[in-house]
């Protein structure tokens, strides 16, 4: 009997162990696949251009911060980060400000044409930016907004407002309607109820929506490049400058790339506990 239990335990173990191992192996491989390209960028940012072109190395032989120094001391470089962050923040605030009441309306009320309106909003998320590049350029030029931060912020609302409405609506559905009703009975006016009671309840949803607005505005290039020339030029289009007469300065290019990852990494860290639910647009 003892033998059979042992062999049973052994077979159970041999069945259980590889399963755990495969899971871990797959996960480690996947994370390696995620991180190697990023590592390669960081590695190159710590090398001089001569060292990069000099030969193939797996890690920097003489790590140097010169590339970062070049970017952070040259105004024409670092202004790109300031421009990008300016329009991204403007866009996030603007998108959330208009999306919050709209999402509330969609999650609580039925009204004339609500379903069509919701889908029409979503269609704007589906619109290829390439379709809008030229008309945007003409529209913003004609109203004198070309090459301003607000132009890019407004252009990015095209896909961020629908997304924010979609996410917030998902989170708001989860809040029982009785809370609204109780608040009205207690004599709260709508704006006071919305700000004092409702918004704290969906704080995580607002955080996630802000994260997404930040993310999609930060990574977008086609529209932000088309709508700017000098004054509001995003870092992404300044990066193309590294292509000079003497070829490409890979070190500086890599350093600029590394610096564009930093804001995103910081933002992820703050919302890490809500990421999963956020990516499901609050619909889990």
């Amino acid at each position, binding site marked *: 009997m003892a033998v059979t239990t042992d062999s049973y335990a052994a077979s159970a173990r041999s069945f259980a162990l590889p399963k755990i191992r495969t*899971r871990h192996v*797959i*996960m480690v491989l*996947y994370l390696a696949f*995620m991180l190697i*390209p*990023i590592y*390669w960028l960081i590695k*190159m940012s710590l090398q001089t251009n001569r060292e*990069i072109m000099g030969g193939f190395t*797996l890690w920097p032989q003489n790590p140097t911060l010169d590339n970062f120094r070049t970017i952070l001391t040259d105004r024409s470089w670092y202004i790109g980060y300031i421009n990008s962050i300016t329009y991204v923040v403007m866009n996030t605030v603007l998108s959330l400000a*208009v999306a919050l*009441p*709209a999402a509330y*309306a969609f999650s*609580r*009320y*039925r*009204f004339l044409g609500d379903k069509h*309106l919701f*889908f029409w*909003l979503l*269609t*704007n*998320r589906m*619109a*290829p930016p*390439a379709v809008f*590049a*030229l*008309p*945007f350029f003409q*529209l913003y030029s004609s109203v004198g907004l070309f090459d301003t931060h607000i132009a890019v912020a407004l*252009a990015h*609302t*095209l896909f961020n*407002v629908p997304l924010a409405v979609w996410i917030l609506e998902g989170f708001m559905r989860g809040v029982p*309607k009785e809370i609204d009703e109780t608040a009205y009975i207690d004599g709260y006016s709508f704006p006071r109820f919305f700000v004092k009671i409702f918004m704290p309840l969906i704080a995580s949803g607002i955080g996630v929506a802000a994260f997404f607005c930040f993310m999609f505005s930060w*990574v*977008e*290039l*086609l529209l932000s490049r088309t709508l700017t020339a000098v004054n509001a030029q995003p870092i*992404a289009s300044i*990066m193309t400058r590294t292509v000079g007469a003497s070829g490409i300065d*890979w070190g500086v*290019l890599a350093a600029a*790339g590394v610096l*564009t*990852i930093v*804001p*995103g*990494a910081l933002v*992820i*860290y703050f919302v*890490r*506990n809500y990421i*999963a639910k956020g*990516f*499901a647009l609050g619909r*889990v």
Partner: protein
Amino acid sequence: MDKIQNNKAWFLVLPVLVLVAFSAVIPLMTVVNYSVQDTFGNNVFFWEGLTWFQDVLTSRQVHSALGRQLMFSGIILAIQIPLGILIALCMPKRGVWASVCLVLMALPLLIPWNVVGTIWQILGRTDIGALGYTLNSLGINWNYSRNPVHAWIIVVTMDVWHWTSLVALLAYAGLQSIPQAYYQAAKIDQASRWKVFRYIELPKMQGVLLIAILLRFMDSFMIYTEPFVVTGGGPGTATSFLSIDLVKMALGQFDLGPAAAFSIMYFLVILLVSWVFYTVMTNLDKAEGR
């Protein structure tokens, strides 16, 4: 949830409507306007009717770009959806490691798209890139700027790197919502791992997976920056997808009419497919009583 009928809710939607009307309807009407007219400059326009639409519909260039686009979207969906599910199943369920995995996986999603392109452009080079160098020293004559197959491999790998985490995170969120009792019941029934996946996990993930497919389809169908940076649409036209062709036409050659007609049809294709997904999704929501 029962919703109250209240047309005053329109006032809450009004700000969104005004904003989106400014940033979507006006530009879209410009596009429609161009699509039926021709100009020789100086803002003088002639009515052209549906000529441009006929041109685009019969253009071989557009047809082949559409073919490449469909193939690209098909390939990346076929890779990313199963891989994303697999990764979600392998992720730690809770604890520090779950957070670490989440943060690391989400990193590629927050890198500006041209930087993503730059990263892979560098990686694929045989002199200074890890991938190109390795392949070359394995004896493969790797050259993604000459060989169309290699160009496709690098563009697809890049997209898998860039976006699989989105699918994985969505699937993971779906898995997290499954109550422990379901698994216990399955254990009592001695259900196999496959059956647990097929009858518990997959149905519970259905909703989020549809969102994943919808988002991945939409975004892959309008991909522009990344392949443009890596291959510039080449070699030849091997990796010029619809957006690359369109931007070339509209901003490069300034062929407003054909570009506008192209835009409208491009948008309509995306709209049609997305509408199908969306309808399925809302019906699912209803079926679950939400």
